């Protein structure tokens, strides 16, 4: 099927057929967040375990199309074991691949963080690893929502985890 290689690269098909980090983490200690793609009705649950500014575990649950599932799987592999700072750069990289405008701050890093600067650091193609497989999606505007579903849900889960950590000590 010519023309589709961009969208359904081998890496994507691989992650779709054998998704990494499937399931749910126990909560607490993990944090769960649900995401919903109103365009198709697909739902996803992302569980995140944040320990000392490091995402030590992440799991994905739910239904979705091949793009959504493989994007979720690729994401989980990319962020697991990374620091918040590193993850911000990964998320920023993904967003720029999807041509998502830079006006939204990444929720789980402070507004002064370099990831939220006007010219934030993003990964080079060499540093991206398998993530680069997602770059074909941008040519299929309707499917961008599929690819971003897991990422947005993950970002919110991470923010939640962070707030839960901060809240007890910082509450007035």
């Amino acid at each position, binding site marked *: *099927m010519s023309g589709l290689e961009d969208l359904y690269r081998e890496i994507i098909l691989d992650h779709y057929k054998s998704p990494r980090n499937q399931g749910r983490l126990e909560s607490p200690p993990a944090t769960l967040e649900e995401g919903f793609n109103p365009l*198709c009705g697909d739902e996803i649950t992302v569980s995140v375990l944040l320990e000392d500014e490091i995402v030590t575990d992440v799991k994905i649950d739910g239904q979705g199309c*091949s793009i959504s599932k493989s994007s979720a799987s690729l994401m989980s592999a990319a962020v697991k074991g990374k620091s918040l700072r590193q993850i911000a750069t990964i998320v920023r990289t993904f967003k720029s691949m999807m041509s998502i405008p830079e006006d939204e701050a990444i929720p789980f890093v402070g507004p002064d963080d370099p990831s939220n600067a006007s010219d934030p650091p993003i990964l080079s193609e060499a540093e991206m690893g398998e993530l680069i497989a997602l770059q074909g999606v941008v040519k299929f505007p309707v499917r961008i929502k599929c690819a971003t579903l897991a990422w947005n849900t993950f970002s919110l889960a991470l923010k939640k985890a962070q707030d839960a950590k901060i809240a007890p000590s910082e509450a007035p």
Partner: protein
Amino acid sequence: MAQVSTTLTSSELTPTSAIRREDFPIFNEVEQKPFVYLDSASSSQRPLVVLEAMDRYYRSTHANVHRGVYRIAEEATALYERARTHLGNFIGAPDPSREIVFTKNATEAANLFVQGLGRRRLDATSTVLLTHLEHHANLVPWMILKEQLGFAIRYIPLTDDGRLDLSDLDQLLDGVSLVGVSLASNVLGTINPVAAIAERAHLAGALVFGDGAQFVPHNTTNVVELGIDALCITGHKMLGPTGIGALWARHELLEEMQPFLGGGEMIADVRLDGFTPNVIPYKFEAGTPPIAEAVGWECALSYLESIGMEKIRHHEVELTRYALSALEEGLGDAITIFGPRDPESRGAVISFELKEIHPHDVSQLLDQEGVCVRAGHHCAKPLMRQLGVAATARASLYLYNGHEDVDALVGALQKCQAFFR
């Protein structure tokens, strides 16, 4: 206006070959080869005559309708009113020139009926009866009014093969004031036994609103024979332009209904302390109506009539029969087809699932083969939950489709399967 030749060669009468596809410019002019359009349940394409009628209108006659004394305003008004009467006749309205209200689409027509009559007939003690297979257009307007008035909503359930389960209909109808039911499902294809429902509803003292968006484009429609009280339809699904739909209702009901949108044309008088509504149907047509769209839709009606709705229905039944068996033969266990199997009791709308392949991936891969099918919940989320799926892929056929389109669909689905294996 619609200069359509009605001569047919015998080859065109072969049931599964398209009816005059050559009348539809998009099949030549789209920048995509091949172009297998299987999404007419979302929106149809239109024949050249319809585009020409609108263009001619804008180039030679356009002026705002009503109140204009000068010639082109009178002509525009005459064309607009002729479209109204023609549409009324097309669906067998007893009083065609007074019973058709033009709206922007079927959805507005449903809202107009629900708010207009619902506010007269319903209160916190009332019950409305809908079905599990309704399009959101025949669900959400009722839910909005329910939030305002607080009545109850009941639903007619479905049988396993996707038909309305009428076994408890009389109990369901008990105490019901208004029934909303689609004439044909946009997901399952099911043609509902609306005449029978209407008869029993009337015995129970309820009025029946029919959603005709998927039925009227494909079948001879006669609201009197159906025995319903009101009907919504939409132009773009029946070879007409976007931007126009209509409500038909018995004129006594239109008289009874509250005005909905307020503004110019729908009033007889406005004082600083209030207004007097205009006579029907103008009472419901606030502001400048879709004039060119009415002209285009009327031409589409003429075109459909010149072919004959029976012939279109016959074509679709045969094509659906062909498609159902070609899909099963070509894909075997890998495909699940929703809805009734008997082509005589359904429209040419085929929803299906390909084993372990998400409908959006199906649609995406089909697009690469030039095959356009829709994937999603088709604005029928409650039905999706009944079917136990988040979405389906849906191929829908119309008079310009033929067996070669079905063959292309089956071939593309096979490739799709191979791709994800």
